[in-house]
């Protein structure tokens, strides 16, 4: 009997596909829809201490395989979030709480405020490429900052901590090791790339209101595969591969590079809410063809020999 069940940080997942933060993670209703469409787990849209309006529209568009966004961490702030996510049990699959801050204390404050919400893990993105004060633009992705923020968060919660890194980091394995050393339980390898820019040639203006934005979509898959491959041998904690996964083939490939979990976000744009069911079925079809019974036989095989 072929199974793609996955045990990730103590969460029993029906499959390793996890809704990535920032897409459809705005409410219990939207995440329930994703869970009903086959996701193994879901991640909420990141929450900050204070309310954030984010950038003006256009905040998202696509050119073929390239999807761009500069949403700017719009969220209602931790007090409102506490109400919005009070009944996450209704979602029916494990829920990861994504928390952002401009400094280590902010991450801690949000985690403490949301401590009664029944999250199954906490994700800390240090990798957004298009929001001043946060992530890459605030230098949160350096080995030193990663260590400092992870350490502070480690003290604030007993839940598993996932640190979300950027493919942009020049010293990726060092950053991943810093997170592990500071007490992280997993690495989410991959945020959007760039930032990039596209200009409307008739008006001469950048299309995104924030001018620059993160790049996602099938076009970035090869970079995510390489990043997962690179950090797999340097850390012992598990990896979620996020960035470009759209098909069962992408999913298998990411696992062969060393990912235990698979983040899916922009895939929804390309294939609909049921992209999770579609990918899961494609994974099973491939495993059947190749005679694999479980994911254990696939994870990290690209490193063998």
């Amino acid at each position: 009997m072929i199974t793609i069940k996955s045990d990730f940080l103590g969460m029993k997942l029906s499959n390793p596909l996890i809704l990535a933060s920032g897409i459809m993670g705005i409410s219990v209703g939207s995440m329930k829809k994703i869970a009903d469409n086959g996701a193994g787990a879901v991640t909420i849209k990141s929450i900050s201490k204070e309310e954030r309006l984010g950038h003006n529209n256009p905040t998202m568009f696509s050119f073929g395989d390239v999807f761009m966004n500069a949403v700017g961490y719009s969220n209602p702030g931790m007090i409102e979030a506490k109400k919005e996510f009070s009944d996450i049990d209704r979602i029916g699959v494990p829920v990861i709480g994504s928390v952002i801050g401009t400094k280590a204390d902010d991450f801690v404050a949000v985690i403490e405020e949301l401590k009664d919400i029944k999250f199954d893990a906490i994700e800390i993105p240090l990798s957004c490429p298009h929001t001043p004060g946060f992530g890459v633009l605030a230098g949160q992705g350096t080995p030193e900052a990663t260590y400092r923020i992870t350490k502070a968060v480690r003290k604030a919660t007993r839940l598993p901590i996932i640190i979300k890194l950027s493919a942009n980091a020049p010293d990726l394995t060092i950053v991943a090791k810093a997170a592990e050393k500071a007490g992280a339980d997993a690495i989410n390898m991959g945020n959007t790339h760039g930032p990039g820019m596209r200009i409307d040639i008739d008006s001469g203006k950048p299309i995104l209101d924030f001018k620059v934005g993160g790049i996602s979509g099938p076009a970035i898959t090869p970079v995510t595969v390489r990043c997962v491959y690179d950090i797999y041998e340097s850390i012992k904690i598990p990896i979620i591969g996020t960035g470009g996964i759209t098909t069962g083939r992408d999913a298998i490939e990411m696992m062969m590079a060393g990912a235990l979990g698979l983040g899916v976000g922009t895939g929804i744009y390309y294939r609909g809410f049921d992209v999770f069911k579609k990918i899961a079925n494609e994974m099973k079809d491939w495993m059947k063809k190749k005679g694999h019974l479980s994911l254990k036989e696939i994870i990290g095989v690209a490193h063998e020999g």
Partner: protein
Amino acid sequence: MRDDYPRSLEILEIEKEAKDLFTVFVKNTLDGFVPGQFVMVWIPSVDEKPFGVSYLEKDRIGITFEVKGKFTKKLAGMKKADIIGIRGPYGIGFPDPDSSTIVIGGGCGVSSLAPLMEKVKKSNSIIGARSKDMLLFRNRFEDAHFTTDDGTFGKKGFVTEILEEKLSALDKVSQVFCCGPEIMMSRVIEICKKHRKKCFISMERYMKCGFGVCGQCMCGDKVVCNEGPVFESKDVEGNPEFNHFAKD
């Protein structure tokens, strides 16, 4: 592979329709547009917002909007040959109307129904507004029923009263299409339920992506941009946020 970026178009014309209500016309580049669907209108360096289409002609489309905030104020002040971007069409529109479909619009909600009002029996269109100076398409649909809250034009009262009369008079009515404030649409749904008529409504929510990714426009468990904005009434009945709550 999909492409979803704003296509730049020169403004052909901007017309004043009523108090604070304008229509901007651009070349029709929409492929297979169904009335009730929407487009994202981009003013470079300003913002991008969702709008229905109020004039659907072979060569051009018109988008009727109410001046409410910074974006619509800017749009109303634009001139012929200025550039705006159009992205879409998006969402699910209304089903095909037959001549015995009733079409009811309140306020600016009339705009996305106007292409349908051209297809139904003339007296089957019901148009309402708070006052005469805010009433849309008085000349375009001369034979429609008009209501104003203050009685300055047409019948004094609400569009729902005309609907009730028409359905009670046992006229041949196949279905009802409606767009307007949610309190009005809620009432229309009740009336249709009582008379056992199929009813479709068009919902408005703050939108960002327009194509079912960001989750900004959620209304209960419905993704308005993608599963709507047009819904059959049975699909919104019991939705705890319909007519109660909308995200900023």
